[in-house]
């Protein structure tokens, strides 16, 4: 829970203005991917975190299921302009997975089954901002939405929420992922419309 500062108002977008600039609201859940949908059986699924010193932690599906879960309800913003409000998920917070990892890295490069990658500042994965999500709308996450498990980082454009997530590499220096090296923005803040490099 954030600490509320009495009497602090700040400058904010107009009240009730939930749509970032350039976005429209949709009620479906469009599917956009860079390639064919990987199908990863749960028995084979594993998730790893590798630090800048090469130290590695790994979780099997059963180990992931044994961790404390959260059920975030969040808005999604896709760089292709749709936004979807109030989506409900179930997953394990990255805070839980990273809590005991020793690192001084500032960047994360996220890897997916199928070879997809995306870069995110490490700080954006911590502090209740990101999850490894495996249920959506009360159901197991279907493969087309990244099942068995995907990253969920709702405050950034959706291409950062890597589907079929397989692991996170912690890095001292930023390295671009799949879309970023194709010209998409390194950060991808929907409220600042950071769609492409240079935005």
């Amino acid at each position: 829970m954030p600490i509320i500062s009495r009497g602090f108002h700040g400058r904010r977008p107009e009240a009730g203005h939930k749509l970032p600039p350039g976005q429209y609201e949709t009620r479906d859940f469009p599917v956009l991917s860079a390639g064919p949908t990987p199908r990863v059986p749960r028995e084979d699924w594993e998730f790893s975190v590798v630090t800048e010193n090469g130290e590695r932690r790994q979780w099997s599906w059963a180990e992931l299921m044994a961790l404390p879960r959260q059920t975030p309800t969040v808005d999604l913003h896709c760089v292709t302009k749709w936004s979807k409000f109030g989506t409900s998920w179930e997953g394990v917070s990255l805070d839980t997975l990273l809590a005991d990892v020793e690192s001084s890295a500032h960047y994360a490069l996220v890897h997916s089954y199928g070879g997809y990658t995306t870069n995110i500042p490490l700080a954006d994965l911590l502090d209740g901002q990101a999850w490894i999500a495996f249920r959506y709308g009360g159901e197991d996450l279907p493969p087309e939405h990244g099942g068995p498990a995907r990253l969920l980082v709702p405050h950034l454009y959706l291409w950062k929420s890597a589907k079929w997530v397989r692991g996170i590499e912690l890095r001292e220096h930023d390295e671009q992922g799949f879309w970023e090296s194709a010209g998409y923005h390194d950060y991808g803040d929907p409220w600042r419309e950071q769609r492409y490099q240079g935005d």
Partner: protein
Amino acid sequence: MARAAVSGRLGARLRWQAATLVERREETASAQTLVFDVPGWAGHLAGQHVDVRLTAEDGYSTQRSYSLASAQDADRLELTVQRVPDGEVSPYLIEGLAVGDRIEIRGPVGGWFVWRPEQREPVLLVAGGSGLVPLMAMIRAREAEGSRAPFRLLYSLREPADRLYAPDLERGSAGLDVTYVYTRSAPQGATRPPGRLAPADLVQWGWPPDFEPTVYVCGPTGFVEAAAVQLVAQGHDPGRIRTERFGPSGG
């Protein structure tokens, strides 16, 4: 991009922590030092900063960076905030926050713009306005550690009333030379007429490049750019000039 020097378990570093305001000290008419109690603060290096997060009652929140002003001191840390007129965060920190109130901070952040006690070489500190804050942390760390590294501070500010940490700097410290560069109005008896930091100031009050000083420049973006360009032109190795930009020049 700033990088943390302090490694540690990610569960703790980069995590927002509650900081309770325990004391405030007026530095000038528009700047205050805020002393926070942060239980379990892991310490910091002189030159690092923290991010401060404020959240309004309806959940709106925003963040700004503030340098750590104090040398490392157990669970307390000090920030010095200069009020930016019509600013979103600094006026609230100075006027809205009461002793006993809590805010959220995370850090320490930054591993490049730091001075470490094992450094022996001469140091030149070039401050513009509130850019003195992290440089003062270096001066304080030097003193706390009993370092004899020779320090020179060149502090550019509009007028005498704007001086931060005036008593501390007046008290002085062996091996620390302090020079004020006033841009608008100098005190009576000053030999240097008011004006922006000029190459001659850096020559007269800094170190010659062949002494191979490490130079730390901090202040508004425009000030930092101008000073760094002058230093390079005078033959200082760009690899030994470290800069921290506080944002818009503000005139």
